[in-house]
């Protein structure tokens, strides 16, 4: 068990209450970031997947930008959704294997908060880079340069919701052999509203129209996710660890 996990467990005993929790959350976040950067190859994978998937469409549909522009919003979001899903499998897996997750559950710190910290890290490592990569993909699919800033914002907000929704499925399928397809089956139905509103916002932005309404709905989904998903995911983690 790493020293960080031990510190988190100790923090729970020394200082119960919100002060300890904030430190614990910060420690979890920093630990996850540190561990992730030790394996940069794994970090790149979802991004590479995103890039490859978006490349498939010009090859399969048509190289003409005018035709690609019509499907660009949908392609972007489906690719982002699938890339996010790919990264979700490892959200809890490594910590479950080496016992760290169990320490988190026993630490006396609110598991909901620690799970939220892990999910936030997941977004920082997957969602945020996807949001920054999306403009490049959008350009390759014929998006006008003026819309690129809007695309970053939409994908950024949408991936927050995706990470949160996905954390629930990841928690429930912990330890199941070859859980990839099941995780997708559980996560995709709940992610469809994000897909719908995100694609709509991107489409409006590409046309130069106001995309505020769907963006607000995306934001509402993200906020709803922040309040409810960590609770459900923490419950799922406890159930999976029993």
């Amino acid at each position, binding site marked *: 068990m790493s020293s960080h996990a031990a510190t988190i467990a100790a923090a729970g005993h020394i200082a119960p209450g919100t002060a300890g929790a904030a430190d614990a959350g910060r420690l979890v976040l920093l630990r996850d970031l540190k561990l992730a950067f030790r394996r940069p190859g794994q970090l790149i994978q979802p991004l590479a997947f995103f890039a490859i998937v978006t490349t498939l469409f010009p090859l399969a549909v048509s190289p003409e930008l005018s035709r690609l522009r019509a499907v660009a919003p949908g392609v972007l979001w489906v690719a982002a959704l699938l890339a996010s899903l790919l990264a979700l499998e490892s959200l809890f897996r490594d910590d479950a294997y080496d016992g760290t997750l169990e320490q988190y559950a026993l630490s006396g710190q609110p598991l909901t908060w620690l799970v939220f910290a892990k999910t936030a890290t997941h977004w920082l490592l997957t969602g945020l880079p996807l949001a920054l990569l999306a403009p490049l993909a959008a350009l390759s699919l014929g998006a006008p340069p003026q819309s690129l800033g809007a695309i970053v914002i939409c994908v950024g907000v949408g991936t927050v919701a995706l990470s949160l929704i996905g954390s629930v499925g990841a928690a429930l399928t912990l330890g199941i052999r070859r859980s990839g397809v099941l995780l997708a089956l559980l996560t995709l139905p709940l992610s469809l509203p994000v897909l719908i509103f995100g694609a709509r916002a991107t489409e409006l932005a590409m046309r130069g129209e106001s995309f505020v309404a769907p963006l607000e709905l995306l934001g509402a989904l993200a906020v709803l996710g922040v309040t409810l998903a960590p609770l459900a995911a923490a419950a*799922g983690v406890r159930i999976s660890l029993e």
Partner: protein
Amino acid sequence: MNWRWFHRLGSPPYVYALARRLTPWFGWLSGLSMLAGLYGALLVAPADYQQGEGFRIIYVHAPTAWMSLMVYTTMAAAAAVGLIWRMKVAHAVAASCAPVGASFTFAALATGSLYGAPMWGTWWQWDPRLTSELILLFLYLGYMGLRGSIDDPQRADRASAVLAVVGVVNVPIIHYSVTWWNSLHQAPTVMRFGKPAMPGSMLAPLLIMLLAFTLFFAALLLVRLRAEILNRERTASWIPEVLKS
């Protein structure tokens, strides 16, 4: 308030005996009311002014759609009870609901498609209600998939219970989608506050069919619940007596 009935429902042998006694009642009542509803739907109700005889599809589409939502809500409620009070029987109820709900969601989508084809000119439309009903089907399948993937029965119960509760947010979305968004699907005519917007001769068979299918679900649930309880309780002492009769 006397909670004894609630605690008694936590006892598998009690529930098994109760289910066995009630099943014939629900079975026969649902069969008879389905026949009555069919008679009303096909022979009594007048044809619609705009939709002609095609409107009669509503007498199977509305009940199946109602089933898909009602069964999921029952499943989620039972799952929540199972999670909160750690009641095995509640988890057994939830498990029994899923296949029934999934099959009727499929029927709702199929009959809806058959209804939409002549009326809207399209077999499918990605509008909010149809899309969220499709999501409901995926939720049922995900629930059954998750249950099937976990070997430990207790863990399977509790993990799928969390999933059922999380997914219940889809149910109000389906119901209110036609009022919140501009939808191809018509607004609620029956399940809303205030008077239903349908004449009596058309409404009566619809209500009878809705009742018939609800009773049918109860009968199915009672039969499946008995099977679940037998499989879960394995070698409990009360079982041999029950099997002999």
